[in-house]
């Protein structure tokens, strides 16, 4: 965090000053470790074993916050009889299909009261589609049964609590040591610190970043910490939670109002062709009759969005222009798109502040994709490698690409920087903060807003008068933003559209006060339902800047947090089931019976994340759905059962509970299960995306080391904003690798000399930094060396400093839920000296592949072959 979020880290330092204990779990010793109370070096890719070990410690020692767990989580809920755990199937859950390498999650569901009744066809369909991650959007996964069986004594053998206990029984401190390389004593110290600092009086928070997400089973890493936090009662309470540190300013904002292919604003799913051909189909899959929670308002949110986009053209009789929305036909994620570029089915590409030729995994593929386009638009502040690849990519040197043969027409448009334009940033707390323009952008540089506004305007001018129905998609759009004296659109007018308006009645034209005002009849508009209220009363709430010292500690008058300015989500959980704070020290939101003329209401330091006047004693009438279906002590109001999910009966494609799998490429055999890696990971079998053999395969010894990639404080991502700035470039001028003295000794590497790092994809060179900050770990009885590679440099002629890119080393293997790449871990070899240049580089890598026996199948069979010997993928 100190390394990549130095400004945010000031608050960790503040907390430490006030007595907080800071524990840093990271493969390498970073600037964060230097300031932490304890650094725990861990083998990359083994975090689920660690987190599972913590879960086991909590359960075996009964350290869970029992009242919270029973009342607020699904610990008591009983599962179906036919659910079978990884512990009985040696690393697989029930429902695995080796043909498709995917699960049918039907057996993972809760048992219903109607369990004997065979589900009808429609239910089966729902169950089949309930978990397909890229069409789920952000909605809580639906449940098959709205009424579930519970055993609040937690003794029933099929209740979640007991299932969880059995699942993690083998994740002992000894196993954690064996898998993660963390000595048992050190691990237990962490367990004791975390549990001692949780409960009524105290809370602990977990902070993670892409070191958790960039894995072939990354979603389950986060689930692992969610289980711990729910067991310890650390969710919805001050000082608790799980904080995701994002890779750039406003990454949170760009998922809220998304740049993701599979989401509409506010985590509404993108409609799928064939499944959501009508508006009724679409709304029906988000909210089903009888379903509980706030997602049942999805129709009002969607209609308001369509009214914001299509204005008067959106009418009830045309399903509010639902048919004008593009429909997905499958995976259109960034990696799929790159492969489609190479295969020639994607012809054009916009790159806005992104440098995939350097910053994306399998950067060789990225560059080949760019080289096979008809046109490419690059909007950036500097002439990045993704704009100049056609003349200076590494493939030009090797002869794989020839400048004269590249037909891509590249348009480079200079962009305004963040201080040269107004707008907002949304950070990890979901807090939106407004920025004002500090200076005018130089020369031809323009803001992204202006670019897209102008692009839309010109496209619409071109299409004017068209009778082609598909052009209504653009022609019917509301495209009427206020412009200033320079003709530049006013970002506040976009904020107004996002907030939404009353369209009819006496308040017509006014901004909506909150999303509960949204209607499904077309009388309201709103560009992103969760942001509704951000411009309440016509006041830009995100621009509020009352200093923390001039208000209470929650600081509700600084910026604005979605939804409804709630600073902590699910904060109903900060009070006990009766509505009283769990402790005075941790009082946050509570029920006050004296308010609301004696009828009582929720109040506290934050905006309650609960229906204001629903008393703790409220119990839903039978069959009630929507918010009315949730009881007065169901704090997790976006979940279909109002509970925090220790066990995810639906919504995930790779299992209801995290299990430890080795990374896609690992020199270590999975010590916990026969199944080596995530059996549902998305693999891409292509000649241009080869994988290294892992432990258990022939040739694994050719790539005996583990590498991980990361960022340094001195640079920003692929370097577009830092390698061109002399003051930053000079602070870390050259690509380097970090190795332990032991590995340096083993391989003859010399500090400040060169090393060549090799994978099945390519070889790169880097300066060597020999440091005790990298520690060899003893894993499963053998020493595992880890190599650290910052990924900021790229090959090109325009930047102040350049160098080989760590992302060239990576292959593509993806998490099945969210299609994120496993870029935090891979296997490799390292040798002293510089890499060969020109065509010799290709021969050098080819020789490695031949020695390791690499084919397109290597490592790419998801299910580990039954016999333990060599076999998988050969």
């Amino acid at each position, binding site marked *: 965090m*100190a390394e990549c979020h*130095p*400004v945010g*880290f*000031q608050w960790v*330092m503040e907390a430490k000053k006030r007595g907080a204990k800071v524990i840093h779990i990271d493969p390498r*010793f970073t*600037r964060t*470790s*230097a*300031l932490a109370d304890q*650094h*725990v*070096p861990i083998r990359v890719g083994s975090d689920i074993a660690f987190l599972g070990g913590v879960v086991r410690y909590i359960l075996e020692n009964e350290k869970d916050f029992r009242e919270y767990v029973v009342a607020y989580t699904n610990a008591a809920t009983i599962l179906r009889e036919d659910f079978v755990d990884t512990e009985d199937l040696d690393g697989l859950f029930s429902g695995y299909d080796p043909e498709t390498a995917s699960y049918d999650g039907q057996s993972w569901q809760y048992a219903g009261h109607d369990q004997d009744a065979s589900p009808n066809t429609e239910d089966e369909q729902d169950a089949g589609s309930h978990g397909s991650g890229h069409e789920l959007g952000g909605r809580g996964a639906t449940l098959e049964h709205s009424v579930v069986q519970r055993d609040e004594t937690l003794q029933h053998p099929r209740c979640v609590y007991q299932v969880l206990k059995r699942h993690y029984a083998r994740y002992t401190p000894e196993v954690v040591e064996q898998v993660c*390389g963390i*000595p048992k004593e*050190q691990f237990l110290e962490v367990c004791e610190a975390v549990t001692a600092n949780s409960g009524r009086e105290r809370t602990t928070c977990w902070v993670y970043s892409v070191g958790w997400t960039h894995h072939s089973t990354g979603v389950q890493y986060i689930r692992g910490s969610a289980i711990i936090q729910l067991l310890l009662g650390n969710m919805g309470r001050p000082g608790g939670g799980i904080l995701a540190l994002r890779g750039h300013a406003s990454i949170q904002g760009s998922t809220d109002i998304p740049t993701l292919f599979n989401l509409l604003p506010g985590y509404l799913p993108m409609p799928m062709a064939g499944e959501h051909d009508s508006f009724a189909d679409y709304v029906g899959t988000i909210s089903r009759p009888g379903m509980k929670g706030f997602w049942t308002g999805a129709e009002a949110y969607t209609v308001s969005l369509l009214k914001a986009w299509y204005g008067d053209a959106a009418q009830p009789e045309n399903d509010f222009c639902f048919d004008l929305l593009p429909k997905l036909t499958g995976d259109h994620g960034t990696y799929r798109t790159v492969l489609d570029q190479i295969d020639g089915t994607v012809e054009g590409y916009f790159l806005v502040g992104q440098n995939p030729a350097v910053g994306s995994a399998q950067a060789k593929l990225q560059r080949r994709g760019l080289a096979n386009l008809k046109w490419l638009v690059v909007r950036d502040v500097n002439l990045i490698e993704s704009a100049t690849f056609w003349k200076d990519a590494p493939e030009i040197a090797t002869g794989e690409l020839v400048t004269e043969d590249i037909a891509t027409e590249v348009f480079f448009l200079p962009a305004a920087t963040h201080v040269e334009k107004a707008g907002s940033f949304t950070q990890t707390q979901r807090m939106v903060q407004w920025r004002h323009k500090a200076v005018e952008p130089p020369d031809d540089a323009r803001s992204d807003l202006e670019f897209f506004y102008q692009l839309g305007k010109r496209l619409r001018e071109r299409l004017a008068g068209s009778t082609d129905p598909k052009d209504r998609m653009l022609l019917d759009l509301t495209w009427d933003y206020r412009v200033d004296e320079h003709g530049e659109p006013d970002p506040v007018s976009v904020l107004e559209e996002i907030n939404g308006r009353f369209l009819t009645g006496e308040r017509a034209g006014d901004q909506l006060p909150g999303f509960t005002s949204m209607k499904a009849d077309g009388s309201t508009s709103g560009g992103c339902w969760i942001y509704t209220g951000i411009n309440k009363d016509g006041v830009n709430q995100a621009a509020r800047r009352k200093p923390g010292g001039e208000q209470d500690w929650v600081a509700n008058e600084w910026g604005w947090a979605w939804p409804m300015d709630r600073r902590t989500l699910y904060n109903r959980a900060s009070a006990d089931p009766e509505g009283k704070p769990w402790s005075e020290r941790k009082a946050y939101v509570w029920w006050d019976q004296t308010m609301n003329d004696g009828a009582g209401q929720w109040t506290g330091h934050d905006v309650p994340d609960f229906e204001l006047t629903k008393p703790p004693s409220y119990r839903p009438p039978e069959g009630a759905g929507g918010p009315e279906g949730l009881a007065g002590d169901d704090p997790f109001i976006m979940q279909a059962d109002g509970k925090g999910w220790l066990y995810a009966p639906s919504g995930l494609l790779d299992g209801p509970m995290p299990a430890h799998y080795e990374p896609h490429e690992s020199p270590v055999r999975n010590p916990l299960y026969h199944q080596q890696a995530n059996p549902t990971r998305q693999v891409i079998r292509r000649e241009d995306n080869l994988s290294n053999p892992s432990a258990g395969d022939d040739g694994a010894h050719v790539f*005996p080391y583990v590498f991980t990639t990361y960022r*340094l*404080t*001195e640079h920003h991502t692929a370097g577009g904003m830092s390698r061109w700035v*002399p*003051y930053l*470039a*000079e*602070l*870390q*001028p050259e690509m*380097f690798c970090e190795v*332990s*003295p*032991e590995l*340096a*000794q*083993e*391989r003859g*590497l*010399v*500090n*400040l*000399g060169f090393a060549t790092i090799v994978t099945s994809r390519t070889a790169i060179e880097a*300066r*060597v*930094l*020999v*440091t*005790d*900050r990298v*520690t060899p770990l*003893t894993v499963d009885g053998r*020493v595992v060396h880890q190599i650290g590679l910052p990924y900021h440099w790229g090959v090109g002629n325009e930047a*102040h400093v350049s160098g080989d890119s760590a992302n060239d080393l990576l292959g593509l293997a993806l998490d099945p839920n969210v299609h994120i790449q496993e870029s935090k871990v891979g296997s490799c*070899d390292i040798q002293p*000296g*510089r*890499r*060969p*240049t020109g065509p*010799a580089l290709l*021969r050098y890598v080819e020789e490695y592949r031949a020695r390791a026996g690499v084919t397109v199948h290597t490592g790419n069979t998801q299910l580990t072959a039954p016999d333990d010997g060599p076999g998988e993928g050969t």
Partner: protein
Amino acid sequence: MSNSLYGPLDPAPDAGWRDEQPRKGFFTDTSICIGCKACEVACKEWNAVPEDGLLMLGSSYDNSGSLGASTWRHVKFIEQGGGSSATDVLNRTADSALVGDRTALGTDMDALELRAPVDLGMPTAQLPGAGGDGARAEFRWLMESDVCKHCTHAACLDVCPTGSLFRTEFGTVVVQDDICNGCGYCVPACPFGVIDRRIGEKGVTKNEGIAQKCTLCYDRIGDGLEPACSKACPTKSIQYGDVDQLRLAAQERVDVLHAQGVHDARLYGESTHDGIGGLGAFFLLLDEPEVYGLPPDPVVTTRDLPVMWRKAALAAATMLAGAVAAFVGAGS
């Protein structure tokens, strides 16, 4: 005005300022420095200090090397302990290593044949803090943002023949680049190696050949702003203010650290009774000053000048007297 070259005093009035301000300075608390180098960058941005070379130094995360004419704030990184004995050997070999030669051109595949990992009998690697043989038990990564100390008795200023270096009304020491003639007397005079002449291309590099160093952002503090480095510091490791106040805050902080069991925490340069008369920019360190490359007992290099001059004068007078006596003697 004492014109003293030694001992405690308030430098601004001593330099003749009558409407002097409270003495301004820095307190740099290394215990909360995260090594982000925002201070280095902010300093360069504000003061238009040029880039200082694109060399990787192989010395932890420090690629700035030292304070100099084009590096006015410098974050040091000290990797301490760990002590797998391989480190020292490797670092020694590094010094003599060929750097930058493309040795792998036209690679000889035979030479690249993989060597199987061989047990070299090295001590088994243990985790930092894991105990074991204790070899890696006490690993620390210390960071310190170094800067001009704005000495109470500043030798650079004492030796400057042009008056380019002067004492400001805030008690700080500033070089006027339009007056400096680049004689370089100040360079060896500084006991901390802070000030230096800018190396660069004549006519291209701004202020080439001119002595340069931190001004404590004289142009900012005169306008009531704080210096660029402390403004940019995210953890308040660099604090700017009245030196009197900073000394109190520093003492308070060191007491807290001692109470928390950080017994090696100490202040450096806050005492007015040291060889400099106290530093305008002082530090909280977590180890001996030598660990940070700071002189343990710095003395203003001009301290003994009066004595030396007195002795020289005495010697001259004696010689003169002797010579006169010789002539007188000869004449008689």
